[in-house]
């Protein structure tokens, strides 16, 4: 009798355990339906309308309070260039200055230009591995800008020297 009672209570306890885990798999369908009521309406509109213009899309985005970015919460894909300046110019302008003002010291243009590359590399670096990979792309653009700027600056500087100091041009 004692064993039977123990078995009975053990069984009850086990059933409770099963119940708790099963509760994890309860889905509130009504809540889901109410959450997506307006989006369901929009989906039906879009399914009925095959070709939709950009202006209509803009109106729908505003009307239905949509976030237009694709990646989940991560808007870095549509992120603006660093302080509004494309990465290429972050390297180009310092490289241009360095190349122009120090034509005879060949290391200086790259040192000055690389400051722009360094700014892009450090300030666009964030903590997601996906973003870091993209920052390498931005850094590469800045480096190319630096190389291009240095070449252009150096070329302009040498050109001006040859123009105004032809004798010095022979030395260069």
């Amino acid at each position, binding site marked *: 009798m004692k064993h039977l009672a123990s078995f009975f209570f053990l069984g009850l306890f086990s059933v409770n355990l*099963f*119940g708790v885990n099963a509760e994890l798999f309860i889905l509130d369908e009504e809540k*889901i339906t109410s959450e997506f009521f*307006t*989006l369901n309406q929009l*989906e039906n509109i*879009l399914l009925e309308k095959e070709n939709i213009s950009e202006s209509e899309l803009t109106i729908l985005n505003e009307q239905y*309070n949509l976030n237009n970015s694709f990646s989940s919460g991560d808007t870095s894909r549509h992120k603006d260039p660093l302080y509004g300046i494309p990465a290429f110019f972050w390297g180009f302008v310092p490289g241009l200055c360095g190349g122009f003002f120090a034509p005879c010291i060949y290391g200086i243009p790259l040192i000055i230009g690389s400051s722009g590359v360094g700014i892009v590399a450090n300030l666009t670096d964030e903590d997601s591995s996906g973003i870091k990979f993209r920052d390498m792309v931005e850094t590469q653009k800045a480096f190319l800008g630096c190389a291009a700027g240095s070449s252009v600056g150096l070329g302009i500087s040498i050109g001006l020297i040859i123009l105004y100091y032809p004798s010095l041009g022979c030395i260069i």
Partner: protein
Amino acid sequence: MNFAKKIIFTFLFTFNSYYYIYPQNFFRIKADFSIKETLPGEKSRLIMGKVFYDKNHKKLIYDINFPEKETIVITDSFMIIFSGQKREKIKMPSSNDFSIFHLCLNSNLAGFGLKNSPYIIEKVEKDSDMVITTYLPPSKFSNTFGKVMLSQKQKKLFGIVIFNVNNEVAGKQFFKNYANYSGMEFPGEIVQIIYNNKEEFYKVTSFKNLAINEMRDENIYNYSVAE
């Protein structure tokens, strides 16, 4: 006459047995999809388009037509986004083997692919019509990943509950509205619940107009990602 009956019976038996001995090989899926989700700040998102997947090419292609026309290709290592003339490449861990498409094509959706993974079965329970299996991560990852509970109804995947290392529920997925496509079961809707900072966010992915093993649009299934 008896001989003719024997021939007919043998033919019918062989014809029917064929589908048991050599189950159909599913290798390609195309479907219309929509993703609806709620976001922080009372925003929401709707994405619609077509999805293509071939398990031999292992490229998952989303041909999106709303909110803007773009194509997203997910390979083993990258997500490449084609938008107009722009192309963007984002490095990401391999995930196609655990996509619903790959699992369905390999008839592994019921177990969510966990059976052949490093995850270990801790226990199996039954509650009325639901079988609940609890999986634990391998010991070396026990400080990074929590357990996973998987429920099945009528041998089809019904729900997944993912826990964090603190044994708190991090997310849930529910698989609903199954339909049979020439022997392959595919859910018509997946409801995902994400728990973040004590808030719940929902994501509903719907699939319609499925096509299995179609031989058209070969270029889309093997979308060129060469630079």
